[in-house]
């Protein structure tokens, strides 16, 4: 006799073909779409690299022929390396936050287990590190404007601010998402039943991190 094996169902929402919750599939579809968004932004930046007629430039010195003013290369790689490190560490905190939510019901005995199992702590740390990254970006943007580079100055300014600004907007949305989860955690506690919600936020957060690795390499490191 033929046997039809149907995978286990999504908790409380009935049967699904893959056995995975639909929201998990949707976030992957969303991330695929976002890849094309950032691919378009990054490609435009790379196509316009070196095509600006006037400075300031990212990696080269520029002397304004009209005023004789000399502009340094504008990108501050050491400072951005620190903020990159901060953002990468936030992904670690995100992983710990998800693990803490998933394992909430497991009894914790030692101090170390209690720290690692504290989802509020790790959600807070993730949001804090994300906000720190955003503060670095705010500092970077203001210092560029003071040095004479705005979004209107040249092709570099337009494509740089739009690309990194879009990334910053994504980080901002992620921080708001994390703070919402943190609020729910304080209100009623996040447990294994909420793991999917945290998992989806974590996938988004890691994606935003990975995009930054591409941006940092292509925009800052490669001359």
């Amino acid at each position, binding site marked *: 006799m033929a046997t039809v094996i149907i995978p286990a169902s999504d908790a409380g929402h009935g049967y699904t073909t893959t056995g995975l919750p639909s929201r998990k599939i*949707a976030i992957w579809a969303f991330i695929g779409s976002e890849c*094309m968004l950032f691919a378009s932004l990054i490609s435009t930046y790379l196509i316009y690299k070196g095509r600006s007629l006037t400075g300031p430039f990212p990696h080269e010195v520029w002397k304004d022929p009209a005023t004789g003013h000399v502009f340094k290369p504008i990108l501050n790689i050491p400072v951005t390396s620190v903020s990159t490190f901060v953002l990468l560490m936030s992904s670690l905190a995100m992983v710990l936050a998800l693990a803490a939510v998933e394992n909430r019901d497991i009894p914790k005995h030692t101090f170390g287990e209690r720290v690692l199992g504290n989802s509020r702590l790790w959600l807070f740390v993730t949001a804090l590190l994300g906000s720190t990254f955003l503060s670095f970006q705010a500092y970077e943007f203001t210092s560029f404007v003071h040095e004479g580079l705005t979004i209107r100055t040249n092709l570099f300014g337009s494509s740089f601010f739009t690309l990194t600004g879009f990334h910053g907007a994504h980080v901002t949305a992620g921080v708001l998402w994390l703070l919402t989860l943190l609020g729910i955690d304080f209100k009623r506690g996040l447990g294994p039943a909420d793991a999917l919600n945290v998992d989806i936020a974590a996938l988004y957060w890691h994606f935003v991190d990975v995009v930054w690795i591409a941006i940092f390499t292509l925009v800052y490191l490669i001359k």
Partner: protein
Amino acid sequence: MATLAAPAIYTPAEKRESTLYSWLATTDHKRIALLYLFTAMAFFLWGGGEAELLRWQLRAPNQHFLSAEMYNQIFTMHGTTMIFLAIMPLSAAFFNLLVPLQIGARDVAFPRLNAFSYWVYLLGGLLITVPILFNSAPDAGWFGYAPLTTAAYSPGIHIDFWVIGLQILGISSLATGFNFVTTIINLRAPGMNLMRMPLFTWAAFCTQFLIILAFPVITVALVFLLFDRFFGTNFYTIAQGADPLLWQHLFWIFGHPEVYILVLPAFGLVSEVLPAFSRKPLFGYPVMVYSLILIAFLGFGVWAHHMFAVGMGPIADSVFGITTMLIAIPTGVKIFNWIFTLWGGSIRFTTAAMFAIGLVAMFTIGGISGIMHSSPPADLQQTDSYFVVAHFHYVLFGGSLMGLFAGIYYYYPKFTGRMLNETLGKWHFWLNFIGSNLAFFPMHFSGLNGMPRRIYTYDAGQGWDIFNAMSTTGAIIVGAASLIFAYNMVMSRRRGAIAGNDPWGGPTLEWSIPSPPPVYNYAHIPLVTSRYPMWDLKSPRLTAEVPHSARADQAVRVQVGGRDEGEIRLGAQPESIDDKIVSQAAERVATAEELGIAIPYSTSKPFFAALGIAVMFSGLLVSRLGSAVLEFGLIFGGAALLVGSLYWWLTSPLEPEVAHH
């Protein structure tokens, strides 16, 4: 068998929910499908009216019925309306109606997101079409080439409406894309493996992938244009060293997949209609699936054939010419398979079948002129002439719209419970077929004689007069056909013959349930054992050669999540498909409460989220008025409405808890 064969006639309920609020708050994919269907038809008539104005201007040389400025606005809005507000949403009407029914699901994966998509589409559509009444519509062509569309060359509010309107419509399409990709991956009924999915669902699946991968690219292109126009960036400022081809590349990386977004759903519908009316399984089902995938995949590698005239050099021209020619292979496969499906079948010439056959004929003509364009030297002669206009009207009118019309005649009973009038349908088909060929075929000749597209009037004696007179006559006939169709659609909704579950003897799952389906679609999620479950039950002879996992008279053991659910018998008994509906259908259809099925709540939150987006973007539009209070009030007010509605939406439950029995 006997029980099932008895027609389970379900009369559409007398007391159907019809208040405005019930439509505003609906999350039922079938009602959203109706909203899409009638809204898109309204925009189709609107865009068709614009086409009639254009043709009236060109009926003879030296006409000045429309000014040059108005002509620019009308041809821009004709293209934009037909592509983004008529054909894509008509396809969306079918995604909404059919995908859940064909895969045996109760609704889409995210019913509220689905409602959100519709409201964003409606508000964005109104934002982009209404300005023509105030002489301030977009006027730079449907592909809005920058730098022409930058503030330096297109000052004023015209292009602002276009940029912002398309940006809003993109949100709607993307939301639909995520929703239906998830639905098709995850909500297929047991046994509905990928190679049993009806061809329309396959076409929808490929189309959604095109949408979620292509729309972000135009989003970025539009963001650059928006920033250039509003914030003074330099993406398209040539004086600052910008590349004049940046827009063209970004736009066509979106724009060519968009062509397949427009035509693949129609291909899917024709692949449903032809087997049903030739009483034969689709010829070469697997190859039809592979060719869909191949068309979608290759569709991302041919964009620059829209740009042969800009001088990209011999290597780029050759590469894009060859990839373009390659697409002819899977497309040709589809044409031949449709013909072989008809071959030897017992064909019934219903209106739906006639439109489907019409697509096969007319799309082939458009496909052949498409192959002519794939050769760069030939294309250089044809670019920007009426020959191109003829080509894409054969593809989009003869292809997309004929397929969608076939789908409307075939599925109108499933949408509404009533049949469209076939006599009016035949009038519609013949007037449409004759009129469209009379309108578009002569454009090949006016184009080859050198008539450029988009000119608002022309001098006599250039060999164009007779062809333009023919085109205008054809356009008027198409207009008459469309009015007959609109009348048929509106009247049949109330007066059409009652359809019953399966008026055509269709092969797929959606014909097993009442028309219109009850809110939960399937009382029991069906178990699928072949591509044509309804023919297995009603005419097994037709599907004898189609692969089955179990024969219809065999018992099958079912395990859910490792737990044994016992044996069920597939086809022989009336229990097989929706026993409860079939047994009760003679009197009435069981309600969701009686069956213990959770139905998503009606909610207006998606509407308010969509409204927030529209308000937010219109804040940018009023920036031209110079009132910062109004501008920032609208932007932040809209953003607050959007975020507030989203939080409210995401924190409220989708459906009531129902105890599982």
